[in-house]
């Protein structure tokens, strides 16, 4: 491919790509994102290729491995064009039937469609599925439409139009004004206005400037950036090149964690393609603007998601935050003005240029414009990636999109913002999602993690979990984080183990105050948040653990005891056989009893006891009833109705 030398030539290339394509030609788009690949998507794709060849249809039907459309719960999933039929949980065995029925006969296979649990109605297209219907998918909608490894696919959906427009029809000042007008705020955590960040760098006198993509997504349970990098890498590149042009930078970096091998592969491929087509390198599209970009793989440190630590790591040193009070858009990478934005922020840029700031501003709330991608995980029916217009309530996200809590359990809290965020209780379900709204409630937007917790989750243990994560990920440089957060973890661990002391909450609050005010970087300053927000909304759980040695969620191992209710036990032997510690005695027609000395509290008996008996109980904060005497354990059959 010779480099494209002008916007006119770009349009010509685009038309050539489109002319080679028949919109009526059947195309099977199969998600080849990490989630679906784990479910066996690669085998499904291979099965389609083989089946189409066998049927002599390889020239008449296209197959495509695409990015993640988001409904990870039901992978591997695929969409068949032009009808846009969406099949879920497809296995290689289903492939011959799909080819013979749907492709050849144009018949829909009902069992592979989404079935609405409440109404038992099937949904033919993605847009009919409630999970998708209530979303506003501006960023991730293209993932399923394109082969993530094909630049021609990106061009076919209008890719690099925004770049051409910026380079030939807009001054850097005009681009900046558009981004500022859109009020695009950073999607990585802080929500700092991107326009103001760019402006600071642009106005900085140093002639050498850098742009950086922060793709060091490390929050537990978060995979928004992975899906974008894997699925539509060119959209991020296009945003980055536009940003570079705006601030006057000629060199950019993509810092991506090495735990994302597919993202690394796809973005590297995208860079090579963009170089070959003339979107990167010297004299881009004949505009005279030069820009090159390199990929840097992170070595597995969460703290490198912090911007100054990321820059230190890019410079080749140990990834530790800098103790500076000068913003990195003025003095960043190698002391040069550096604009660092998150993957999703960059992906929004071409969209704003193409459709305009006014269009973008129609989505969202006063302070938070546009959409936000969340990874919705935890105790939720529809796990996956969701993109919503800002301002949607937590309730709508969890119930309309997420389908509610599985297993008839009660909602308890939703954790947003990753380890630096907080837990919001049921009373705040009608909170509108936005940067300022979430911060005001004691949590934060963060990069978009959203973990739903049900009634079986202990909130003290949630705080302990996140502080354990942060203690592990602290760089160890400053005292409030290295020592303070470590002490907080020790206290929280003690509380969950029934060793909590009366003044523990006060001491935790003291430590939290010091970390918040005096830690070196955002990791340490926000580390107390999981504790502070759970204390704010679930103080009674802390007090129950400390004062009554009781875990209200019946979750903390050291505070619970398993007990078989002799009135309900039907001596079915299920728990007895499954107990890995051989702690249950009893027999046929003999009521089962747990030996508390042997019990390891693995919960197996509780989970396997048939729901019609529900004989295994969990007791916390009260003495376990003594075992019934040997002679009373025999069940006289015939008198029991259940027999």
């Amino acid at each position, binding site marked *: 491919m010779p480099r494209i030398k002008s916007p006119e030539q770009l349009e010509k290339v685009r038309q050539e790509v489109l002319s080679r394509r028949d919109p009526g030609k059947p195309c099977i788009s199969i998600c080849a994102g990490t989630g679906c690949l784990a479910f066996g998507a690669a085998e499904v794709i291979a099965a389609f290729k083989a089946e189409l060849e066998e049927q002599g249809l390889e020239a008449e039907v296209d197959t495509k491995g695409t990015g993640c459309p988001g409904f990870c719960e039901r992978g591997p999933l695929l969409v068949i064009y032009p009808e846009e039929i969406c099949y879920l949980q497809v296995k290689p065995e289903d492939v011959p039937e799909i080819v013979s029925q749907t492709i050849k006969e144009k018949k829909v296979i009902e069992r592979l469609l989404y079935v609405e649990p409440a109404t038992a109605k099937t949904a033919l297209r993605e847009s009919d599925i409630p999970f998708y219907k209530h979303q506003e998918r501006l960023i991730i909608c293209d993932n399923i439409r394109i082969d993530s490894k094909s630049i021609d696919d990106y061009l076919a959906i209008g890719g690099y139009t925004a770049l051409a427009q910026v380079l030939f029809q807009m001054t850097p000042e005009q681009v900046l004004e558009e981004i500022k007008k859109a009020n695009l705020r950073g999607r990585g955590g802080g929500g700092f206005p991107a326009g103001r960040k760019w402006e600071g760098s642009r106005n900085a006198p140093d002639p050498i400037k850098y742009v950086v993509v922060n793709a060091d997504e490390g929050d537990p349970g978060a995979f928004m950036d992975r899906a974008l990098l894997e699925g539509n890498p060119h959209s991020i590149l296009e945003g980055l090149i536009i940003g570079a042009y705006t601030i006057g930078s000629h060199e950019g970096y993509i810092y991506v964690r090495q735990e994302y091998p597919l993202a690394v592969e796809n973005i590297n491929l995208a860079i090579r393609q963009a170089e070959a087509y003339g979107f990167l390198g010297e004299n881009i599209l004949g505009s005279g603007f030069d820009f090159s970009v390199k990929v840097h793989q992170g070595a597995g440190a969460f703290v490198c998601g912090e911007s100054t630590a990321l820059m230190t790591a890019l410079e080749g040193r140990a990834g530790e935050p800098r103790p500076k009070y000068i913003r990195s858009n003025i003095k960043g990478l190698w002391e040069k003005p550096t604009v660092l934005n998150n993957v999703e922020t960059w992906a929004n840029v071409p969209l704003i240029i193409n459709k305009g700031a006014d269009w973008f501003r129609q989505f969202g709330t006063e302070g938070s414009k546009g959409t936000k991608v969340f990874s919705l995980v935890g105790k939720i029916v529809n796990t996956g990636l969701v993109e919503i217009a800002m301002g949607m309530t937590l309730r709508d996200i969890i119930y309309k999109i997420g389908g509610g809590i599985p297993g008839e359990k009660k909602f308890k809290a939703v954790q947003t913002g990753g380890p630096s965020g907080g837990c919001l209780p049921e009373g705040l379900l009608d909170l509108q999602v936005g940067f300022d709204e979430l911060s005001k409630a004691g949590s934060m937007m963060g990069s978009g993690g959203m973990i739903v917790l049900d009634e079986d989750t202990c909130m003290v243990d949630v705080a302990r979990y996140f502080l354990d994560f942060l203690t592990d990920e602290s760089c*160890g440089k400053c005292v*409030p984080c290295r020592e303070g957060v470590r002490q907080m973890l020790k206290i929280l661990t003690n509380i969950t183990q029934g060793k909590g002391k009366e003044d523990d909450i006060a001491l935790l609050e003291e430590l939290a105050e010091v970390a918040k005010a005096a830690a070196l970087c955002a990791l340490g300053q926000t580390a107390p948040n999981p504790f502070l927000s759970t204390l704010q909304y679930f103080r009674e759980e802390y007090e129950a653990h400390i004062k009554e040695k009781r875990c209200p969620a019946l979750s903390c191992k050291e505070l619970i005891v398993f007990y078989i209710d002799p009135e309900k036990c039907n001596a079915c032997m299920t728990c007895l056989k499954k107990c890995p510690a051989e702690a249950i005695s009893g027999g046929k027609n003999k009521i089962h009893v747990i030996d508390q000395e042997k019990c390891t509290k693995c919960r197996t008996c509780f989970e396997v006891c048939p729901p019609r008996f529900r004989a295994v109980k969990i007791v916390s904060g009260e003495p376990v009833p003594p075992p019934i005497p040997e002679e009373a354990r025999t069940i006289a059959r015939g008198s029991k109705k259940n027999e």
Partner: protein
Amino acid sequence: MSKVLLKIDGIAVEAREGMTILEAAQSAGITIPNLCHHEKLEPYGACRICTVEVEVNGWTRFAVSCVYPVEQNLLVRTRSAKVDRIRKMILQLLLSHAPDSEQLLALAKEYGADRDRFEQEISFCIHCGLCVRYCAEVKQKNVVGFINRGTKREISFVPELAVTECWRCKECFPLCPTSALQAAYVLIESLKQGNDSPAFLSLK
């Protein structure tokens, strides 16, 4: 260099542009406690005990004075109830590792820090990095460095370099606020014979 006028604890201080708050305070005879600061070394901002309150345009924030550059009309308060609480807690956290450090105990007395607030886990080193940075920045030898991350972070000599460099230098010893460094070096000396090549000799 142009002059910068600021107020520290109500006292008008004239500083040079580029100075830190700590340097400006020291030049005016105002004491701010510090553990990881050294005049010959680049500001490090790790111990956070020199945290002060700064006020710009009516907004108060906390800043470490060894890093924060002076600004015209900046208002600095080197002591406040919260600043004192921060310093007290930092001292308590460090005393659990180095309960007999004289420097820490003197400060603990001033700030009412309880030496036994946290369970003692004696490891001496408080990670001020003075030895590491002195060896790198002043001596340019890089014989002693940090290994590991987070709560597992430790200082460690590179034995092969220590053998040739340290015995005639030892300039870092008096910098150490807890004598941990000297202990580490004595340990490496004693282990030198008989042990082939411990690539990195841990302090503990």
